[in-house]
């Protein structure tokens, strides 16, 4: 079968029952898409198919033929190709906001966020939370993930992102501490 992934067309040979996730990971070596459940429950395997976030463990690889697939590995090169600098702003914001703990959920999370921002450049906090609600994260409690996406939106609106609880409070610091 022929799969177009991150701009390249690959000629792959895989059993008919293999999912897109399996082909990406175990045939094309694109291991950035993770498998957390293989049942459509966790969202770790999310990729973009024609710009829409899709659960790649629930799509047969064959069904993805002729469609544009973007995986987490594709974001940074795509950003560079469009004249951007550094990693995709979503990737960068996740890093700057502490959103990446174990990182296992993050390729899916970042792609879901990317798809939202491509669709709705200035989403509300609620829209952000809803767009990411199909991606389970067990580490972060989501707060820093949501803040990361909110920071991109704030920047696009030209306003300062809200201060985070520990920055705003700073209550516990002893006198004389920075």
């Amino acid at each position, binding site marked *: 079968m022929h799969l177009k992934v991150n701009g390249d067309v690959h000629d792959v040979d895989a059993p008919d029952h293999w999912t897109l996730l399996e082909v990406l990971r175990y045939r094309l070596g694109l291991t950035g898409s993770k498998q957390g459940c293989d049942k459509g429950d966790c969202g770790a395997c999310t990729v973009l198919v024609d710009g829409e976030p899709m659960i790649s463990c629930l799509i047969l690889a064959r069904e993805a033929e002729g469609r544009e697939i973007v995986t987490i590995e594709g974001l940074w090169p795509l950003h560079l190709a469009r004249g951007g600098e550094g990693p995709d702003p979503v990737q960068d914001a996740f890093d700057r906001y502490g959103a990446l703990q174990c990182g296992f959920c*993050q390729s899916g999370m970042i792609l879901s966020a990317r798809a939202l921002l491509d669709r709705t450049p200035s989403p509300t906090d609620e829209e952000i939370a809803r767009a990411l609600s199909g991606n389970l994260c067990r580490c972060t409690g989501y707060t820093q993930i949501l803040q990361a996406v909110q920071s991109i939106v704030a920047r696009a609106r030209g306003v300062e992102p809200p201060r985070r609880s520990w920055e705003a409070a700073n209550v516990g610091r002893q006198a004389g501490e920075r």
Partner: protein
Amino acid sequence: MASRDIHGIDAPWGAFRHVGRDLRKVDGLAKATGAAMYTDDIALPGMLHAKTLRSPHAHARIRSIDAADALRLAGVHAVITGEHLPVTYGILPWTQDETALAVGKVRFVGEPVAAVAAVDEDAANAALKLIRVEYEPLHAYLDPFESLARHDPPIHEGRKDGNVSKHVHLAFGDVDAALAEADVVIEDDYVFHGTTHAAIEPHCAVGHYGADGVLTVWSSTQITHYVHRALARVLDVPAHRIRVIQPCLGGAFGGKSDPFSLEFVVAKLAMTTGRPVKMLYTREEVFYTHRGRHPMHMRYRTGATREGRLVGVDATIVIDGGAYSSYGLVTTYYAGQLLTGPYAFATYRFDSTRAFTNKPPCGPKRGHGSVQPRFAFEVQLDELASTLEIDPIEIRRRNLLGEHTTTVNGQRITSNGFARCLDVVEHASNWKTRHGQLPFGRGMGVAGSMYISGTNYPIYPNPMPQAAVQLKIDRSGLVTVFTGANDIGQGSNSIAQYLVAEELGLALDQVRVVSADTDLCPVDLGAYSSRETFMVGNALIDACRKVRPLVVRAVADHWQVDPSRVRFVDGVVVELDDPPLQPAGVAVGGEARPGASPPDAAAGRRWMTAAEAFQLAEARFDTLGATGAYNTPTLGGDYRGGTIGAAPAYSFTAHVVEVSVDVETGRITCEKVWIAHDCGRALNPMLVAGQMEGSAYMGVAEALMEAHGVNRFGLHAGPSLLDYRIPTTVDTPELAALIVESLDPEGPYGAKEAGEGPLHPAIPAISNAVFDAVGIRLKHLPFTPGKVLAALRARKDAAAGTPAPALAGGAR
């Protein structure tokens, strides 16, 4: 000799350059771009795939196993059973009761019985279906009280005490006399259900056996060192011919801190076939592998004076351990030992018994052994407050343990920011104007806790360092840190980078970290007991302080100045004025980098890059490097078990939560959690906040959503991430992380743990908030709508049957 030096809490070069800032993680962008390699991302040439055949019975003898047909199947390379891996293991040296594959009998549904290596997963799965196992079912014990009452047939043969996994009874002071004299005694039963870790990455291992006899195992483990030891024991390969590597890890929370069947199986199959072998657990297998939070049935009696001062606490706890010991011996102690702060107990007694049952084995989950008693006690304390008509925060203040003191069970307490944690959550939540004053159906609750920051007792007793590191200092200006520490997402590799850069005065990108590879890194005991930052941090500072004077001296001699005039700042070495007053040119917030114009060039002072300084030192003193180590001081009460629960420092937490309760549906919504946590010093506040938020989120979920249970056949009630409900973005309350810093005298720059403590108070605080909202006391977890409705009905019935208005603590 492992260092027991106290390194102090001050910045090494006058002002902190990295510590205390919200820095990026060392591996953040690798994770964000999909480049980070996790265990299942490894593919080796010729690699086979392995699958496990699991028991369908909760308790049965294995009569026979016939794998002949499976072995004949095309693509199948090997089948192994318990007879190929008969040596027992277990995380604790005293309770080695597991085998990689069942030997003779099975003790829970899902227990590994046989394993197949085949050319791909499909062939392996097909082969599993052809393995014929004949079982003789035995009575299955699914209730801990039953397994304590009878043990014929026993779950584990040959034990003197039937199905008792561990029993601990400890008393401090005369509890009976204290309770007899107390003005008020609250007595009640509390139930903590089981929960599991549900890390998003399933367990995975890859084994490789070289013709040179070296066995390499990559595993999603949080305890590389113990896996190394267990592999040597079970496979009978000398430890020096085994290499264990933990690749990037997709979450653990205690669920990857035992040696697991798959690690032995891939190793054995690789040795048998001469091919690399991978095994990846399915999500269902992860649920059966479990090692999650122990269900506990707890009876507490707490006595206090009229003023609310605690005079005695008496606890009886029955723990459902599941089929194997795992960490259960420690759990049984922790269930009592870790309750003795942040409040001073005048007298205390606990009796805890862990029972084996025919269920997936329980083990350590975030807040090991102490989350359950904390729930019971903090709810009881709240009841005491309402009975005595004392504000719930106030009653906690009246019982503060304080700093630099000793608990009733002999644990040394040093830094203690709990009083400030209470102040902070009280203030941030506007407690004074809101608690007890919100409309019916809305309420606020408080709870506190204390947790160990590392444990002073290594899992196997030995006098060697608990944490050790090695530094390689390169003439390029790069320092490579080798540490056995397991970064499980909490950021221990990042902390290592920040500390070494701080200590040696380097820019962050001049420090790279190699971790959790037993061939390359000195032994660290692993990511458990919240020990990494505290212990590895101290070991890193120790190593840096051995090598730093050499570099400084080389520069000082080169400039012919006193060493005190040499200062490292972000990778640039500058000469200070004589005498040095200020860290010259150190502008806080600056981004000085080697290669950039140095801060003092304009002033005409001498300077060089760190690389040049390293070269001078290397020319003078030979190859540069250092080792560093940490061991805890001798700690613990002077009685059997007194060292269990002893830690070089303790963290403290207070939560206030706000809930709303829908009295029609019984549904509780946790609206917001204010989390104040004393982490000593926040080395990176953003990472500390991430731990606090992640902990609180997990606690809220345990209270309201999650339940790990089995049905009457011992089958898991819902082994999927759909049925085992973990919160999504829209189920998670607003979380406010409020960092409190007590600057611990022994922590690295004063730091303590942040990864486990902040989970504890969430659960009782929710129960206490529900009381404030609708006047019911929830004592059985999880707080399902059914339980809420039943309690509301009971309260209504009681009110109807009572002519007088409710007594103290009653409805409003």
